[in-house]
């Protein structure tokens, strides 16, 4: 079997593989830069919490519409936004910190979601919602994922500067009259829509994988934020492609295969990335004169 049979034929021969690839590449374009900013804002675990928060909304959509795109997407978006707002409000209004109140609400959300789907559907439906089915992506979901990626890139370009300043020095942004609060809300909305897009392909439990793993890996490859975003997109795209091929050739579940490949890239980056990786720590080279 030649290299092209390994790498190209699956995509040339099967439409479902092509659709899955396009969906994953679109997802990589949108989610990975969002993940970079989540890490810069020290909110890495928030993506995880919000991805779980999608579940009860998607479950309500499922109860009313079955496994169909729009009810589950809209429901999921609504539920995640509700959890984000509710947690934010609890953090401001009570002595509970934001991470604690998020943890509380997303656990409730996850339990409600799993309960609803197991009540009204079967174990197959539950697996679908938790782990997604990127190989079954239809044209409508493909359009949704691509639209979300486009909107995300445009929105990030618009809010790039204030978002970056908000990460670096929120007090300065506030003092010069910058729209810190609005920027934060917009960014959270971007996180949620990208998780909804990821949910279509990878399911609630895996959606956050393509967002955070490439972003965390990118820190070991680039010095600037722009470079990190670019590296994250590339790592996400390579992980998606190789994960799909792995799942095709070895008959593995596609979502976990993709996230696992991103995990491999993450661990490899920690070990051998050009910037402050383990390798660099072990072999820093001789010191300079000044």
């Amino acid at each position, binding site marked *: 079997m030649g290299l092209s049979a390994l790498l190209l034929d699956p995509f040339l021969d099967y439409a479902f593989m092509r659709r899955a690839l396009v969906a994953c590449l679109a997802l990589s374009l949108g989610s990975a830069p969002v993940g970079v900013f989540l890490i*810069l804002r*020290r909110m890495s675990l928030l993506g995880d919490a919000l991805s779980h928060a999608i579940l009860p909304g998607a479950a309500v959509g499922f109860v009313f519409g079955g496994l169909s795109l729009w009810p589950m997407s809209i429901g999921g978006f609504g539920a995640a936004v509700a959890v984000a707002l509710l947690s934010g409000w609890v953090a401001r209004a009570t002595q509970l910190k934001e991470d604690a109140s998020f943890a509380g609400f997303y656990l409730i959300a996850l339990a409600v979601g799993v309960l609803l789907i197991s009540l009204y559907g079967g174990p197959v439906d539950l697996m679908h919602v938790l782990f997604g089915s990127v190989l079954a992506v239809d044209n409508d979901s493909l359009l949704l994922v691509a639209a979300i990626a486009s909107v995300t890139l445009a929105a990030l370009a*618009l*809010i790039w*500067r*204030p978002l*970056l*300043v908000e*990460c*670096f*020095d*929120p*007090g*300065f942004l*506030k*003092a*010069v*009259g*910058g*729209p810190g609060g609005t920027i934060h809300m917009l960014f959270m909305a971007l996180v949620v829509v990208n998780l909804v897009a990821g949910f279509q392909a990878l399911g609630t439990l895996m959606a956050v994988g393509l967002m955070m793993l490439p972003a965390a890996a990118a820190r070991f490859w680039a*010095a*600037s*934020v722009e470079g*990190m975003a670019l590296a994250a997109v590339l790592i996400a795209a390579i992980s998606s492609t190789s994960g799909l091929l792995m799942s095709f050739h070895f008959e593995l579940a596609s979502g976990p295969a993709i996230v696992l490949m991103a995990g491999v890239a993450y661990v490899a980056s920690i070990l051998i990335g050009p910037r402050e990786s383990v390798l660099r720590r072990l072999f820093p080279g001789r010191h300079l004169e000044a």
Partner: protein
Amino acid sequence: MATIRLDGLTLAYERHPAVHHLTGAFEPGSLTAIVGPNGAGKSTLLKAIAGLIRPAEGRVTLSRLDRREIAYLPQQAEVDRSVPLSVLEVVALGHWRRMGLFGGLGRGQLAAASEALDAVGLGGFETRPVGTLSAGQFQRGLFARMMLQDAKVILLDEPFTAIDTRTTADLLDLVRRWHDEKRTVVTVLHDYEQVRQVFPETLLLARELVAWGPTDQALSPANLMKARAMAESWQDDAPICHRPAA
């Protein structure tokens, strides 16, 4: 000219006052040090002037002054230096009012940023990541950013804490220059010697106003004694304050 008036200003955390019924004014072009014991409300007062916190009672009045013409340098701890930005990018933020959210930086503005870096002794540091600067170098960078902000009022919160003497001297020169340029400068400080040498006016604060005026008079032994006697702790069972607002 721009004046900042405080009328019966009370700033509180969970109803406990950090600044209590403070009245007075920072005159245009004045150079004032705010001194007082820890917990005296000095930083809180700067935040209120910068418009970052709302008074519990009383008010801050800005005359002939937009809030965006106030430059405010908080204590260093509030900045996240792990964000990978270059020194030039950080300093150029001082142009914010002119470039806003989307505007680009013109050649002149970039040149001004480089000049500001030279002025604070950071020439040649343009492309260095801010995370690699020492505390003193970073503080120089933030001063360069303030130069570009070209603000009428400059608020500095303990700008020389953990900074070496040479850097402190350089930055104090900059403060003097701002004073010569008729900007209003208000600085929270702990070093009485610095205050006596550089700052004509002093506000001695110990939650309540202790003294506000020419530095020699404000920092009299009697006043310092009074400030030191301030009780730092909250009283959980403190009664509600009924003093008239202003």
